[in-house]
């Protein structure tokens, strides 16, 4: 799993879903979890936070800037292009999955989901990026 001091950014326009994801992150031992209510606010945090964001967990369907568009911005900026990015979506149509993969998503999770599923996805991302086995 990721280092527990990794700065995690949870992005969702729904406060309850942010709370749910942040609770899972806390249960996993992450100690530095930030939140943003849409993609624009998330982009501002990514750009302005003195400590680099080490993992983004973002909803897809949001006003102002969608999760997919946020992902594209992150991947297009060489300063952040390597940031692990998990998309959370209520939609899982094949065309959308293809769009997300083309944009460089590390993994995606379809709502509804359990804490165990979110944990598995995070572990898969960490492993894919050459991380060590669960700490």
């Amino acid at each position: 799993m990721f280092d527990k001091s990794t700065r995690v950014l949870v992005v969702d326009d729904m406060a309850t879903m942010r709370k749910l994801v942040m609770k899972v992150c806390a249960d996993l031992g992450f100690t530095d979890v930030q939140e943003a209510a849409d993609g624009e606010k998330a982009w501002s945090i990514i750009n302005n936070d003195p400590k680099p964001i080490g993992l983004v967990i973002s909803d897809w369907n949001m006003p102002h800037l969608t999760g997919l568009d946020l992902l594209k911005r992150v991947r297009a900026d060489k300063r952040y292009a390597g940031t692990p990015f998990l998309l959370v979506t209520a939609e899982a149509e094949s065309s959308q999955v293809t769009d997300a993969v083309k944009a460089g998503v590390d993994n995606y999770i379809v709502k509804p989901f359990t804490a165990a599923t979110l944990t598995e996805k995070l572990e898969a991302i960490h492993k894919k990026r050459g991380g060590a086995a669960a700490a």
Partner: protein
Amino acid sequence: MTQANVNFFKPFVDGVINTLKVQCSTEFKTAKPFYKDASNGPKVAIAAILGITSPSFTGTISLGCPKGVFLGLMGRMLTETFTDIDQELEDGAAELLNIIFGHAKRILNTQGFTLHMAIPTVIRGEGITQRHIADAPTIVLPFTSDLGEVFLEICTFPTQPTPPKP
């Protein structure tokens, strides 16, 4: 109810049951659906409403429930105890409907529907009933659980001369 209606409603029914089971750890069962009239609309304390758009029909769907049921669902979802619905908590209703619609949309779009994702809105109030688009039939799909009932209401009408499914 026609077979076309059943085919259209089933993904929503499955979406409610699966979403509330996985996200809120609550088993729901279907109860007898009914067409809504001026006097038999379910009384709820909170409801999320979503516009449905497709090339051939339009309408609304809503997910509503009494206060105690909603607080119970949110409590199980977030593993906390809630005694009142505040602004932060109320968007949980929108999120649940969003997930249910996402499930139904994924299935229906493989059957030729072209539904688009939208962002739900939430209404609150004690003992409210919802009124959908005038003159279009609204079907109420009730679901029961140990917490109580939730109601999914679906109202659609065609937007083209040739009526599509449903």
